[in-house]
């Protein structure tokens, strides 16, 4: 059974000057025991997708329509506050980018954990919650002493690792990691990523939705990659396929412009010469008609300007939304 199923999801920011259609009709599935990466550039809607699925929905963000099923429970059928109480932290957990903002600064880590856990699971006493945390910290190779510290006493990387341990303490089915490493320097990024991977291989969560603009980081950990552009999914496939044989023109431009310190990179860049993008992603208040990428696409045809391409399964579990493939 899939751990996450999303169908026709629309999540908009309702502003006075119009609604920003940040997630505008998204379908995706995260299978059991898998890590799925979501990539795209700033403003493509990937963080809004994370917030919507993690039920971190506060105005002006609004779930406009669509279905979200987590671990067999259709959360979009429940009232939001009830879903948040029953699901958030228990079945789905979110690790955001800047952990400092997520932890109350004036409380010791262990007291903070006790507060959160006893609220989420009323059967546990504070002592049991802290014992659980001690065990979990050992399992994830985190220093037990950090439980006695205040958040500001921990380094950025350690705060992020503590937050990962804390949010997964009740073994949620799905962990959503939204740019969990992007505020850190490179050596710390690796340690944080190892902690996330350990949460997965030790079976503390079933599956992970890993959101990042940094494709080389996503590549380390994900089985599959979803590419988003302007509020839509443009491509889905295995990590190897999307990385080395992208189909959508936007994915090609994105995948072939990654600069990692590897000798193979020069050869990749030759593939992007004809695809050098200009311009910016469109406004999500008034997105262009047809395919949202057409104003920047070197292959744009008439139909791309008029009609929106649907996401089709081109090969087994390989999806793309582009008229180049739909016309064939």
């Amino acid at each position, binding site marked *: 059974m899939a751990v996450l199923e999303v169908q026709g999801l629309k999540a908009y920011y309702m502003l006075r000057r119009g609604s920003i259609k940040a997630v505008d009709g998204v379908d995706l599935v995260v299978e059991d025991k898998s890590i799925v990466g979501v990539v795209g550039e700033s403003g493509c809607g990937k963080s809004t997708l994370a917030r919507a699925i993690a039920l971190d929905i506060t105005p002006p963000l609004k779930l406009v329509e669509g279905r979200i099923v987590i671990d067999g429970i259709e959360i979009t059928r429940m009232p939001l506050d009830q879903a948040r109480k029953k699901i958030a932290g228990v079945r789905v957990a979110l690790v955001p980018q800047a952990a400092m903002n997520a932890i109350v600064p004036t409380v010791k880590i262990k007291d903070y954990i006790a507060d959160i856990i006893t609220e989420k699971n009323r059967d546990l006493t504070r002592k049991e919650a802290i014992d659980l945390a001690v065990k979990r910290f050992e399992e994830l190779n985190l220093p037990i002493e950090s439980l006695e510290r205040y958040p500001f006493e921990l380094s950025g990387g350690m705060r992020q690792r503590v937050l990962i341990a804390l949010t997964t303490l009740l073994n949620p089915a799905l962990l959503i990691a939204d740019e969990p490493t992007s505020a850190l320097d490179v*050596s710390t990024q*690796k340690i944080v990523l190892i902690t996330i991977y350990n949460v997965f291989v030790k079976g503390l969560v079933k599956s992970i939705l890993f959101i990042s603009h940094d494709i080389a980081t996503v590549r380390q950990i994900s089985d599959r990659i979803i590419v988003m552009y302007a509020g839509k999914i443009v491509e889905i496939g295995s990590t190897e396929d999307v990385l080395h044989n992208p189909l959508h023109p936007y994915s090609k*431009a994105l995948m072939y*412009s990654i600069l*990692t310190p590897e*000798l193979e990179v020069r050869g*990749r860049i030759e593939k992007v010469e004809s695809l050098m993008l*200009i311009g910016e992603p469109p406004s999500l208040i008034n997105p262009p008609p047809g395919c949202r990428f057409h104003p920047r696409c070197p292959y744009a045809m008439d139909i791309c300007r008029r009609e929106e391409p649907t996401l089709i399964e081109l090969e087994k579990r390989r999806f793309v939304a582009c008229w180049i493939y739909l016309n064939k």
Partner: protein
Amino acid sequence: MHMVLLSVRNLTKVYRSGLIRHKSILAVDNVSFDIKEGEILSLVGESGSGKTTTARIILRLLKPTAGSVMFMGKDIWDELRTREDLKWYWRHVNGVFQDPFSSFNPTHRIKDILLRVFNLFDENYDKDAKMKLIYEALQSVGLIPEEVIERRPFELSGGMRQRILISRIFLIKPKLVLADEPTSMIDATLRLGILKLFLKLRDELKSSIIFITHDLGLATYVSDRILIMYKGGIVEEGSPEEILKNPRHEYTRNLLDSVPKLYTSWFKR
């Protein structure tokens, strides 16, 4: 590309802080290197490695505690003193920085910003000649002059603002360009286009370029030679191939090991 354009010798910068109990921070520690004409060199390091301090000293914005910077045979701190000397220096050594927002007065139009560049020039141009050069420079960086010239910085996207800054360099035609994290605020699909402009700058104007970056991947793509900086000093020097294939210093090896790659994974997936 054999002549040495700029040479840095035993450059040291110590920052002192505190009124009563003095605390010293060694930001740049005995750094020496040369840059040749037409060469692209990268200074790579994490925050606090001293790379930006080194760049600011070379731009003559910050005085070193010890050591020298020689440009075309002149010591930039001892021999350049008058306004005229400095005008000459910045005509030949100029920079492009990380945040295109902070580099411009937001109330000025792009036209005004670029016209001001002519203050660095000794030659006298009339208004038409100036505008013609500005149009050429904007075209060099892939912008349509008519579309941007009357606009103000905040009306343009980050990528366009960065192109404007580079058009300024095409206008000045300096012998040496210092580019401090020029693409770190720009999305990946636009980054490559901006980097290509620097390569064009080198090919067309024969300018030398010093890239200041934390991004080893970017450095191995654009540079002829890379200097790795750590705690104020240079720990390794080599061509991109040498650094990738045979990193000698432990810090470089750790850095390479920590950067996520496209062709390998740390985990069994």
